[in-house]
């Protein structure tokens, strides 16, 4: 009997990278469907385009790096990154912007650092921030949810918009700033929060449509927690920080500072808390460290939103916190068994 010497444990592993990524995709579905429900088929077009481009980039670079292509493509990590990136985009943007963004996500954000597991910055946020800084006009032209404008672009129109065959100007009437942006601009002009809230883009708690999408991200997040795909530390700390910061300033002056509920349900706080900040590769790894990491992101989101130059700050907050991860991890090492 000839034996190949392998090392224990000799147990078939249950959880795999692929299964983790599939759980994330499942958790993204309800929010994505709600998003498309309120904002039209542009959302789905963005996701499909981003995913296809990401897979193409991934395959090309893996080939260049002489790495096995299929095992990496089928771990679905590229799909998840592209999906999250696409969700950050305005619902209608030209295809080449998606190409540039995904290019930065996959090449600069991921593979230049050594590929999955080695990137210090959240790749989807790297791609998004590049676009946000380089193409501010396209990246801040958002569209009203159908519940406000009464219509959305049809699939055909949306495709035409994305691939450039149609006159973009004709739908200008549907475009608008996001509720967060409107609040920011208005407060700067001295209008009170109560007055802004009368605008038709606002619903019960936050932006119309937005508030319900946030709810479905939350359901997806609970799924991630229930399947133990992520742990509670980062989302809880992040949401707690946003609530604490917004509550503090809301109590100080409710005329210029919006309510905690508005902050929670606007923009990308919920998806950020459960899906973006929890990217394990770029987050802190110790339990205590994850709490600090989540708190840091939450505080930065609020600071950027209220006093910064951008209406929402998830991407910048996450990237800034990514930089602090080695430090956080080093100083939050757990006590080893038997140590005082």
């Amino acid at each position, binding site marked *: 009997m000839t*034996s190949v010497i*392998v*090392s224990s*444990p000799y147990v078939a592993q249950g*959880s795999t*990278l692929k299964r*983790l990524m599939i759980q994330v995709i499942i958790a993204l579905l309800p929010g994505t469907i709600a998003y498309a429900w309120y904002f039209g088929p542009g959302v789905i077009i963005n996701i499909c385009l981003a995913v296809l481009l990401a897979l193409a980039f991934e395959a090309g670079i893996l080939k260049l790096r002489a790495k096995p292509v299929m095992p990496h493509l089928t771990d679905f*990590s590229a799909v998840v990154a592209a999906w999250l990136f696409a969700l950050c985009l305005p619902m209608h943007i030209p295809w080449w912007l998606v190409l540039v963004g995904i290019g930065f996500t996959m090449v600069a954000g991921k593979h230049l650092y050594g590929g999955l597991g080695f990137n210090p910055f959240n790749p989807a946020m790297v791609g998004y921030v590049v676009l946000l800084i380089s193409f501010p006009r396209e990246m801040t032209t958002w569209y009203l949810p159908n519940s406000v404008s009464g219509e959305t672009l049809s699939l055909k129109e949306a495709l035409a918009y994305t691939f450039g065959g149609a006159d973009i100007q004709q739908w200008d009437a549907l475009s608008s700033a996001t509720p967060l942006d409107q609040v920011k601009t208005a407060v700067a002009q001295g209008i009170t929060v109560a007055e802004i809230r009368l605008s038709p883009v606002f619903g019960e708690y936050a932006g119309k449509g937005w508030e319900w999408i946030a709810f479905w991200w939350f359901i997806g997040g609970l799924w991630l927690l229930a399947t133990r795909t992520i742990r509670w530390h980062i989302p809880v700390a992040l949401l707690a920080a946003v609530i604490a910061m917004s509550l503090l300033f809301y109590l100080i002056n409710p005329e210029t500072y919006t309510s905690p509920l508005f902050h929670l349900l606007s923009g990308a706080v919920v998806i950020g808390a459960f899906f973006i900040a929890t990217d394990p590769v770029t987050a802190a790894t110790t339990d205590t460290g994850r709490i600090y990491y989540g708190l840091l992101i939450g505080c930065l989101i609020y600071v950027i939103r209220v006093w910064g130059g951008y209406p929402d700050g998830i991407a910048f907050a996450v990237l800034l916190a990514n930089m602090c991860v080695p430090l956080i991890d080093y100083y939050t090492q757990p006590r080893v*068994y038997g140590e005082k």
Partner: protein
Amino acid sequence: MPELHHFHGGLVLDGHKTESLARGLQQASLTERLFLPLRQHIGDHNKPRVEIGDRVLKGQVIASDSALICAAVHAPTSGTISAIEDYPVAHPSGKMDTCIIIEVDGDDKAVEPIPVDLDNLNPDEMIELICRAGIVGLGGAVFPTSPKLSRGKAQGIDTLIINGVECEPYITCDDILMRFNAAEVISGSGYLQRILAPRTTYIAIEDNKPEAIAAMAKALAEHPLAGTEIVSIPTIYPSGGEKQLVQILTGKEVPHGQLALDIGVFCQNVGTCAAITHALEKDEPLISRVVTISGDNIAQPGNWEVRLGTPISHLIELAGGYRYGASGQLVMGGSMMGFALSGSKVPIVKATNCIMVMREETIPKSPGYHDECIRCGKCTEVCPAQLLPQQLYWHARAGAYERTQEFHLFDCIECGCCSTVCPSRIPLVQYYRAAKSEIRAAQKAQFKSDRARLRFEFREKRLQLKKQQDEERRRLKREALQKKKAGAGNGKSIEDPVQAALDRVKARKKNAQEDSQ
């Protein structure tokens, strides 16, 4: 019942225990030849005490040493020593080691037992008898029992823990032993109590072994021991690890760099207790043990009382042979911490609690390709030593061994929990084992080079000193000579003959010149 505490992490595993529990405790037959490695314990090396051609009796010492951390090896049956040579042994590296090979005569004739007055033995005499019997910890660590007892007795023991936890998958030898020989385990525990005089004794058994718990409770009721409790603990791997078990039962952690003994806790495996009973009551040394044979490639999994030195191939035959043919993998120990064996020639030793006979498909292939670490931290959640396995992996892989030590590499107990939960299927423990051996090798090399440097420097110094001394001696000699010369010159002037001759020549030349003028 003591208040039970938790240890960090751990896993609930598929135990694979029922397969090997169906057939009770079977007696393995003698085979033609036994192969006994000289060293079957952790500690110093033994020397052979027999020569080729010697006839030996069952129970006769065939290898021993006077070192402190040592356990003698005895002949498991009667026969003739046919060779003392290198033979494949149970070792992760698949290495060969010196074995004493006994040609079995089949008489199974034993040496005459020396009767002892057991009731009047003092603790030191009991430890001496245990030492003579070559008893080591049978839970797998094979640390010699007598030096451990001496140290425990000297330091004072508060809590004695009899470990019948057996948390590793596949292994059932302790379970079977407790079911069938509970009385021996209980009386062995009693002897340990006599030696160590602990305040409390816990007999810890995982709650997935109700039959063993019942049998032990019955035996304890028949032979009550003072301050002794049978404690059923939750089935979470690795609760049988000494540090984890101490934490579960006492809530205390064994401080970094210390032993359980140092905090007054003494742990001993149930198999060792039974061996102590044999040694003290029958003067029978450790020459056999219960071995589980299990796995998906063995026809009849079960437990066997096997003589040490029996080749595994014999045990496989007794258990009905291979189920799917003789290809696949043999593993000694359980599926979490066991190690692959080089083949079925390898003999059963004191450490052999279980032989897993696995099909090729069941054993994950050696790691050619694995996904990269995504830092998910699942390994950290399950680590019973509360380490950061993914940081250890990162540094071990990069060869940053100093950093691995900063992250407490040597506190890793190699339980395998991290590797089991890793979604990227990284063989983490393998990286840690490799890093540990690299560090140990470097320390050894450092020690050697330090010693060599010291020797060199000392030699240089010695040579220089010698040179100085030689020079000094020469100088003294020269001075003495000059002094002697000077002393001789004081008496009468001695003319230099060369100078005198030159003077004479000069004078002659001068005269000749004067003559010619």
